[in-house]
């Protein structure tokens, strides 16, 4: 091929071929570490479930009108989403960027940062959708009644997971060192995790904390999961929760792309 006129074809944004490439890379890599990942993503919440269910459950039998095991068994879905969404995204992104130089290789192929971030976010979302159901299934063994609404839980967990995954990528894109994750973890994620209505209802909290928790995506995830399992209460209220989760996912997604571009394209 001595001389060539390049065909004037313009490749678009968010192409399926590029997203598929990123996803294939994730899936093939996952095949080499799915055991440890699945172990920590499912055993952690199960331990929380059993510890709170039995420990706390022996002190209180019902909370906010629910059996405690039902209350915590549904609430913990959101915790799992946080654990299996934000944390793998934070650490995974940082390691791939800083130590494995993976993104250099991917961006040298016909893949843009937007596709890279979206693909990785989607893959983590798929995992959180699956892992999120696990503690609920365990809760069924301990007395949570199965319901058709539970079929919606993977989708709610997946949507929230997409938001948290992108939020994690955003944190990693801003991080100078892996140690700086501690600030986010202790300063933001842990308080959010506790004040989401997972283990205790937020009604008992001071007003300011109740107001704040309305800005906590985990709270909206918990409410939506609980309502899906036990029956939706008010259409408007639940649409509100859904809208918040969608908005959170969109904002986190764009933030992740924006900051990854700053990091990866010099």
């Amino acid at each position, binding site marked *: 091929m001595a*001389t060539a*006129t390049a065909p004037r*074809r313009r*490749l678009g944004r968010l192409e399926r071929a590029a997203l598929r490439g990123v996803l*294939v890379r994730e899936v*093939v*890599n996952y095949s080499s570490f799915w055991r440890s990942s699945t172990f920590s993503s499912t055993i952690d919440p199960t331990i929380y479930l059993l510890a709170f269910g039995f420990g706390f459950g022996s002190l209180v039998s019902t909370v906010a009108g629910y059996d405690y095991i039902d209350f915590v068994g549904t609430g913990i879905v959101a915790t799992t989403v946080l654990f299996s969404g934000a944390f793998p995204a934070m650490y995974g992104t940082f390691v791939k960027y800083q130590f494995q*130089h993976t993104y250099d290789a991917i961006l040298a192929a*016909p893949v843009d940062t937007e596709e890279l971030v979206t693909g990785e976010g989607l893959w983590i979302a798929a995992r959180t959708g699956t892992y999120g159901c696990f503690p609920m299934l365990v809760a069924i063994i301990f007395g949570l009644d199965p319901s058709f609404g539970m079929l919606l839980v993977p989708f709610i967990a997946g949507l929230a997971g997409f938001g948290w995954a992108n939020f994690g990528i955003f944190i990693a894109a801003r991080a100078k060192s892996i140690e700086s994750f501690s600030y986010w973890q202790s300063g933001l994620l842990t308080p959010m995790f506790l004040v989401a209505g997972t283990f205790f209802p937020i009604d008992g909290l001071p007003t300011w904390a109740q107001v704040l928790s309305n800005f906590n995506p985990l709270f909206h995830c918990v409410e939506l999961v609980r309502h899906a399992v036990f029956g939706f209460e008010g259409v408007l209220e639940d649409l509100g929760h859904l809208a918040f989760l969608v908005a959170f996912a969109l904002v986190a997604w764009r933030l992740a792309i924006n900051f990854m571009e700053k990091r990866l394209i*010099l």
Partner: protein
Amino acid sequence: MVNSAIRLRGVVKRFGGITAVDGLDLDVPYGTCVGLLGPNGAGKSTTMKALTAQVILDEGEIEVLGYRLPDDSKQARAEMGVVPQLDNLDQSLTVEQNLQVFSHLYRVPKAERQAAIDRALDIANLQERRTSEVDALSGGMRRRLLIARGLLHQPRLLLLDEPTVGLDPQVRQELWALIDRLRSEGVSILMSTHYIEEAERLCDQVTIMSHGRSVAVGPPRDLIAQHAGTEAIEVYGSPAKLGEVEAEARAKGWSTRRTGTSVSILHANGDTNVEGERRITNLEDVFVLLTGEEIS
């Protein structure tokens, strides 16, 4: 009509107060191998990254395979292969899985994927290590795998960033044979390197970079003839004596370069008054003369 696989004009890239690339022009004609030669910090890596739009220019123009960067960079990337300096293979995957993943990233059609992977394994001579994890490969094998990965989609342009850095001499020669074969098959190649011998052996043309600029362009032989003459005289002695030799040579209008223990007098063709070892000039002489820096 485009007749260069890569064309850079007036490329400038600054990082804060540092100008990494400072008005670089560069051409890689189709079907040739061009070497980008320069000491560390000359701007080679920044230039290589600009070709995949991982570095966005402050000034200047880049065309790759007729596509304007950065707007049409994705199309350009679809048709070129990149072999990075740093090993960025997926360590816990096997050789074949690494190729499989990139056959998707490089959009090799489904029906051709297995054939592309087999062909890449052949090129890299890694058929027998197909199922080995990358962790278990030697440095030379990893580098071959990196090259194979960049060739999965049969690109017509290959970027090699320091392809043999840190490898044993015999492994380096194997890779040279591989690169030479690709060039003979018509693949256009841009290779950054600071190994002079590599550039001398493989490249049709070299661009010598210093402080972000191109200081010489041409076929290695021409550059040697032009800047260093045909013969160098190597004079050994005490530092004091070397100083005298240098002064004497300069007075006669010859160029000199200091190595650790000797002075090389260049461009002294045919002069027999100077005592010293005669040797054939090489690209390293040109390099040191033009960049003012010794290379490892």
